[in-house]
């Protein structure tokens, strides 16, 4: 009897775990939808900025700006975006692995590195590897706000302008689609010139754009728009990381729920067998007793 009862107890606890993972999956799904909506809504801004930049480029103003200038890297900054919580598959560990790779690369090249980490998971993982973290954030959850991201970006901009850093890399999980997210290292500073952004200007828009007047001048607008474009890219990294985290958790919890179901099936089978063999044993005992009484 002992074995059957132990199996039953295990089955009950697996059922409870399945309930929890199922709920977490549903929560992650709801959060993912919200995060996705925010990410979609944020696309317009980037698109409009790119359009204005394209128009400035087409107007023939030479695009020269300190933010675009590639300098030899003497001191670099790395921003690592991870989650505050685990139970989301390989989401955090993939980002940490990427971060360790780039930090190792800078160390190999004798370049000083200014490391900033967002998310409790990343902070503890990098601390464990003995990496010196200059600054850390734990306030970014599934809804990063522009007003919270912008000050961080502005600090990087002023450090870059002052020559304190020569390069900024962001390590985060890029969201391609619901089936594909990958941990990447993206260079945000120096900014890539607008032409290199893909989506080559179509001849029609170039023609139309030459009619634009600029107030006060194309150069002055460029000066303002490049920092804005940097901030929006940085914000997009945060949004992507948030969306990817929810997707990763959704997938991990779905797998966990399925595994729990499989385990319950297996345990039920073993429990039934144990119960049956116990009943059979008892019948045999009774039969044995009856036979003994007959004699």
């Amino acid at each position, binding site marked *: 009897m002992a074995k059957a009862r132990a199996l039953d107890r295990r089955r009950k606890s697996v059922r409870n775990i399945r309930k929890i993972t199922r709920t977490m999956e549903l929560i992650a799904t709801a959060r993912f939808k919200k995060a996705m909506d925010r990410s979609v809504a944020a696309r317009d801004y980037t698109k409009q900025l790119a*359009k204005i930049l394209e128009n400035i480029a087409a107007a023939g103003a030479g695009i020269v700006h300190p933010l675009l200038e590639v300098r030899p890297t003497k001191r670099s900054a790395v921003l690592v975006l991870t989650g505050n919580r685990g139970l989301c598959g390989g989401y955090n560990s993939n980002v940490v692995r990427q971060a360790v790779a780039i930090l190792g690369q800078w160390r190999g090249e004798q370049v000083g590195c200014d490391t900033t980490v967002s998310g409790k998971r990343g902070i503890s993982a990098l601390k464990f590897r003995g990496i010196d973290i200059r600054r850390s954030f734990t306030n970014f959850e599934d809804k990063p706000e522009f007003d919270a991201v912008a000050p961080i970006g502005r600090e990087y901009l002023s450090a870059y302008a002052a020559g304190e850093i020569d390069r900024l890399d962001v390590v985060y999980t890029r969201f391609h689609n619901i089936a594909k997210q990958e941990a990447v290292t993206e260079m945000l500073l120096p900014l890539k010139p607008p032409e290199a952004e893909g989506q080559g200007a179509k001849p029609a828009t170039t023609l139309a754009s030459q009619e634009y007047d600029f107030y006060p001048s194309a150069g002055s607008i460029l000066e303002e728009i490049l920092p804005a474009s940097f*901030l929006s890219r940085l914000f997009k990294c945060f949004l992507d990381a948030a969306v990817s985290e929810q997707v990763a958790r959704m997938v991990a919890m779905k797998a966990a729920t399925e595994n729990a179901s499989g385990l319950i099936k297996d345990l039920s089978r073993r429990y039934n067998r144990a119960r049956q063999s116990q009943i059979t044993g008892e019948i045999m005992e009774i039969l044995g007793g009856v036979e003994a009484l007959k004699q």
Partner: protein
Amino acid sequence: MADTTTASTPRAGMIRFIVVTPETTLVDTHAKSVTLPLFDGSRGIARGHSPFIGRLGAGEVRLSGEADRPGEGVRRLFVQGGFVEVGHDVVTVVTQRAIPQEKFDAAHARAELEKLLSSRATGDEAIGAKLEAVEAARAALRTAAK
């Protein structure tokens, strides 16, 4: 672009007006005219305005004769910095901060202005930034007071 069928159909005598912030598309509507706070003063825009790209200062955007809210008068928004692209009867404001007047917290704005005024700035850059911030805070309060 948040192309909804109602917002993108051209309407006679009207311009399409869009405000995008890093987080969302705040406004997408049609209006008779719109007044924008450019870096050096206000500029009114109606249908047929010549295309331009301009830098915005801090101040209020006034929308009048909106198609979706007939007879409701002028709608005001506070924007702080950013750009405007005017072209082919579409006015797009790209800004990091835009707050509709009805959601504006005047007490908070006043507190911020006071905090700014009492802070001390040293060096040309810091002083310039402070003056700009004070100007923006005053513009915000003006919008709120209307």
